[in-house]
């Protein structure tokens, strides 16, 4: 902003403060890894999310071997032999006869890289007919690791999109309400309160019930995004409205009005930018809520449906306690959800810490 004069803008000061917070940076890195993994899911995962093999239902993580007959060898996996023990429980045994070396850029199922051009190379894997389950297999013999990456696409983006939509809705409605005041304000705030009144999960379920049955998965996906944002906009709108009520009395607003600028322009360019510091931090802290909301919906079967993967619907498998005991790897989506939530919380906290002085400065300018 004013680098020449030697003064740093408030954003720059805040950003510097943020940079020093190592915990927050770790959070940012982990999130980048997760989102990166989601974007590159086709490439990074050895198998497609749909790739089933009922012979290997609940197969444990395949052990990678580095030694062959006592000698150091290129990492490889063996085949698996399925047998049943006396309780009719599945037991997988190593079949040393079959030897599949781990390969990079292995040829696998076809996909579209970044949705653009077709490609057959996957980052790592084993050649067919070998199966390599890095983190084990689910009920239908699908690779957990691959599904986690694909699931990340759904879970991480639904959360983000829901938050962005709720953020925009909240900002606009709060801005209009705070700026115009009067009966419009009253009406909008009553609307807000109504939405805030119904406990979130109930509203979620009820809205989901209103979605027609015959929607395909893409439409369901977007319906869920919209439903999630319906729940979250009210809280932000109220606070933004409060801020706008005081902001509209400031001199530059009066100046803008006297210049004949349209109301919308004033709201968008002169008032709302000052609410950004609070809004961004509020959004950051609300994203975990959206991710958890989608996970909860999918967990109980009302979200993303099979065969599409989402961390939530992968966990619905884990609702049976017996299965957790014999196949604990099906809980891995929960750890990823937890990790994501922690990262967002940490970043949100760090943002609050460095935006606090900014907010205080905003307050002092009132004089």
């Amino acid at each position, binding site marked *: 902003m004013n680098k020449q004069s030697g003064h740093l803008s408030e954003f720059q000061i805040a950003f510097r403060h943020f940079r020093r917070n190592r915990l927050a940076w770790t959070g940012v890195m982990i999130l980048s890894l997760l989102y990166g993994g989601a974007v590159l899911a086709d490439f990074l995962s050895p198998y497609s999310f749909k790739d089933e093999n009922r012979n290997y239902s609940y197969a444990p993580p395949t052990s990678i071997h580095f030694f062959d007959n006592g000698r150091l060898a290129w990492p490889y996996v063996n085949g698996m032999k399925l047998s049943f023990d006396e309780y009719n429980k599945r037991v997988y045994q190593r079949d040393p006869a079959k030897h599949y070396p781990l390969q990079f850029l292995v040829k696998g199922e076809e996909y579209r890289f970044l949705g653009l051009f077709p490609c057959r190379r996957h980052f790592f894997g084993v050649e067919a007919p070998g199966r390599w389950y890095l983190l084990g297999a689910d009920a239908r013999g699908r690779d957990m690791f691959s599904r986690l990456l694909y699931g990340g696409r759904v879970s991480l983006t639904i959360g983000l999109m829901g938050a962005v939509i709720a953020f925009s809705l909240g900002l606009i409605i709060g801005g209009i309400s705070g700026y115009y005041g009067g009966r419009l304000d009253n009406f909008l705030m*009553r609307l807000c309160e109504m939405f805030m*009144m119904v*406990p979130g*999960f*109930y509203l979620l379920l*009820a809205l989901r019930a209103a979605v027609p049955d015959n929607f395909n998965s893409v439409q369901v996906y977007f319906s869920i995004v919209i439903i999630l944002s319906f729940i979250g906009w009210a809280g932000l709108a109220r606070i933004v409205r409060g801020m706008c009520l005081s902001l509209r009395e400031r001199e530059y607003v009066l100046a803008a009005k006297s210049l004949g600028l349209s109301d919308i322009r004033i709201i968008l360019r002169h008032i709302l930018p000052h609410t950004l510091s609070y809004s961004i931090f509020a959004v950051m802290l609300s994203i975990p809520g959206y991710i958890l909301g989608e996970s909860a919906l999918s967990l109980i079967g009302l979200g993303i449906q099979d065969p599409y993967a989402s961390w939530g619907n992968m966990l619905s498998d*884990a609702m049976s306690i017996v299965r957790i005991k014999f196949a604990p790897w099906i809980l891995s989506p929960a750890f990823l959800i*937890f990790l994501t939530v922690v990262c967002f919380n940490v970043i949100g906290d760090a943002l609050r810490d460095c935006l606090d002085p900014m907010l205080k400065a905003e307050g002092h300018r009132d004089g």
Partner: protein
Amino acid sequence: MLKYILKRFLVAVPMLLGIALLTFVLIRMTPGNYLDTVRLDPQFSQETIAYYEKLYQFDKPLLVQYIQWIKNLLRLELGYSFHYNVPVYRIIGSRLWNTFLLSLAGFLLTWVVAIPLGIWAALHRNQFIDRCIQFFSYVCFSLPSFFLAMLFLFWASQSGALPLGGMYSPGFESLKPWGQLTDILRHLVIPAMALSIGSIAWLQRIMRGNMLEVLGQQYILTARAKGLPENRVIYLHALRNAINPLITLLGYEFSSLLSGAALIEIICSWPGLGSLMLTAVRSKDIYLVMASMLMGGVMFIVGNLLADIGLAKADPRIRYE
């Protein structure tokens, strides 16, 4: 004081109407006339269908329908559940109570644990135990509650110490009243814990912050300067002020517990409003869905009202405005 309560009560009424409006709008959003789908089902007699058709007046304009809906609600006519094949009010009552019980248990657990924990953390600020508590709080706060519930159930299955969900053990009826009470309590432990741990972590942090802020206030210095015993300074003067802001959170807490309880109920098979709502949504039992949501909203408003009253009692500055 009474005037204040009355005022809050009056505010609650339009809010209730608002929730009714919301549910009504949602009902109308589902395409088609709902009764058409069940008309063909041989389970339901023509009389029942005709009765409800007349009750809801689908052929009249929307405003009339809405007024009729409100009138029905006031008569506690909540519609018919086609999934369970009984009028809604028959099922909702007990489920409502169960959810309330679970929410109450979670609520009590949260406050009984979080407040002392927060005070203790504040008094031992930045020492090792405080840092431990803060770290664990952070972790617990970020764990999805359904995950916690699953872990608890898993542990229960391994150790056999607690029942694996549901609300009653088989053979409940044959137990003596005391036995029945302990049975329900044993079933309540896991859902209540899963429900409250996140809240405990969050509330403890706030309590600690409040306590630290209050302890830095001038009136605490005065209290010490008066020669009051340290216990009195902390547990009377400081605590009373630190807790006040939390009372405004009571209403919010209760609502978030209600909402969270729904998911926990489903996972732990606790027969409450949440699991009822899930069944209703899955079977597209519209009136049941609407009634559940309405009840959820009502409980929220009642919770808020109670919290407002509690706040007025605790903070004289509000009372004498």
